[in-house]
């Protein structure tokens, strides 16, 4: 009975350890992914900078539409 309990405990500990390891891996994966994502966004912004209309304030103010459907 006691051995069973201990065995159960050990099993639970091992599970916990595995979960922690997986979480750490997931954490660094996530960090890596976020870094890559942010680099990706930065390069996209550089591309957009090249084509954005000059003088954004005037440009946006000048976009006036009549209503439609």
């Amino acid at each position, binding site marked *: 009975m006691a051995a069973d309990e201990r065995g159960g405990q050990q099993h639970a500990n091992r599970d916990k350890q595995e979960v922690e390891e997986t979480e750490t891996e997931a954490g660094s994966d996530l960090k890596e992914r976020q870094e890559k*994502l942010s680099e990706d*966004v*930065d390069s*996209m*912004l550089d*591309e*957009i900078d090249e*084509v*954005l*209309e000059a003088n*954004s*304030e005037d*440009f*946006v*103010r*000048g*976009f*006036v*539409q*009549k*209503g*439609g*459907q």
Partner: protein
Amino acid sequence: MSVWRIMGTETEYGISVPGNPGANAMLISSQIVNSYAAAMHRARRARWDFEEENPLRDARGFDLARDVADASQLTDEDAGLANVILTNGARLYVDHAHPEYSSPEVTNPRDAVVWDKAGEWIMAEASRRAAEIPGTAPINLYKNNTDNKGASYGSHENYLMQRTTPFADIVRNLTPFFVSRQVVCGAGRVGVGQDGRAHGFQISQRADFFEVEVGLETTLKRPIINTRDEPHADPERYRRLHVIIGDANLAEISVYLKMGTTALVLAMIEERFMSTDLSVDQPVRTLHQVSHDPTLRQLVTLRNGRKLTAVQLQMEYCEQARKFVEDRLGSDVDDVTKDVLERWESVLSRLESDPMTLSRELDWVAKYEILLGYRKRDGLDWDSSRLQLVDLQYSDVRPEKGLYQRLAARGRFERITSDEEIRRAVDHPPEDTRAYFRGRCLDKYADSVAAASWDSVIFDVPGRESLQRVPTLEPTRGTKQHVQALIDRSRTAEDLVRALTEG
């Protein structure tokens, strides 16, 4: 029982002459349409045939008296504004103060994307052509829905439905779907409120412009469910559901899912498959609240007291649709229906777990990612004109200036079509609807087509005293299968009319 049904899109494009906000919108819209028409090199330009149009008929069963209608509702009075019927079966014309592209009728959401995208190409080409006229200032066109100063213009969808389906069933089952589908097909907007007075980002371009639940209007007091009942087909058999609540989308997956999921829900309504009542408490207010929360946490309260997010509400529809297709089609399900269902499910589950992973698929997420990037890099607030410019320029139709167009060309968006396919759809009609007959006639007999519309082609042929009107009331007739051989062997319109009247 699938995503297949007759459908189409109509988009009013934003239009402006940079540096000249006072430019006459009707005039420059006409210049756009006329420039494209001139480039088609047709000696004769077919008129639009208004005979079967009745924009004041209400799906609830009464006609609005003409003298009580607002002038903007009288779309069947030919004001002499530019109007062309294209060889791809589409209509390119001036509606109110915007150039509008109405796609030809197609049979499924994938084709809807192809011919909707062809419209973007046509607008870009029209703008290039217009700029070639000496002394003309460049005219910019935008596939968006608001100027952020109080004006909105539409991007509508049309779905052919069985007349026998009670309109009340449509209203009850479709309203919660329309309140929530923006999380999938919103185009994203910088600015909150009709005039953009409050600062912030919201999911939908159009949401703030909707003020009532059901109604006939499209330009004022816009309703979530529009009751215009003008089927352009046999009214005994069909109604055309005129959907005015969508945003103008650029991302192909957004357009595809917008049309595909709506078609699935309509099929469930027609077959009375919807088992749970998902009616939303205060739908108009909820529509605005959902749009204003890009974190997707806003709760929607149903009339039965249940609370859930808009994504979860969409999941309810998606789950029912999955069961519906499984029940009706099983393993016989077609590829497009299967694909729409799988993508819908995948998009919703990612919207719940990690929305930013959808930046290659959905317009609002793509736009939001760019805007958040600018905010972080340049420390900009939501009232920054630079962020407003990003929002506007995202929808610029020019391949070299439009942010969507540039990013898509660099492989930053997932696509379901190819450039070749879209380029072909610019000049060629779909092959499986009456648009095929219309498009082929416009291409082959241009000089003999006096007028045309969704449900007719009118010929002016030598040797006949009166004009010859060929009705095309059934949208599923006049397909390649039905009329290709006939058109191929009719050298002239006269031959065609003779074959039709004698056959």
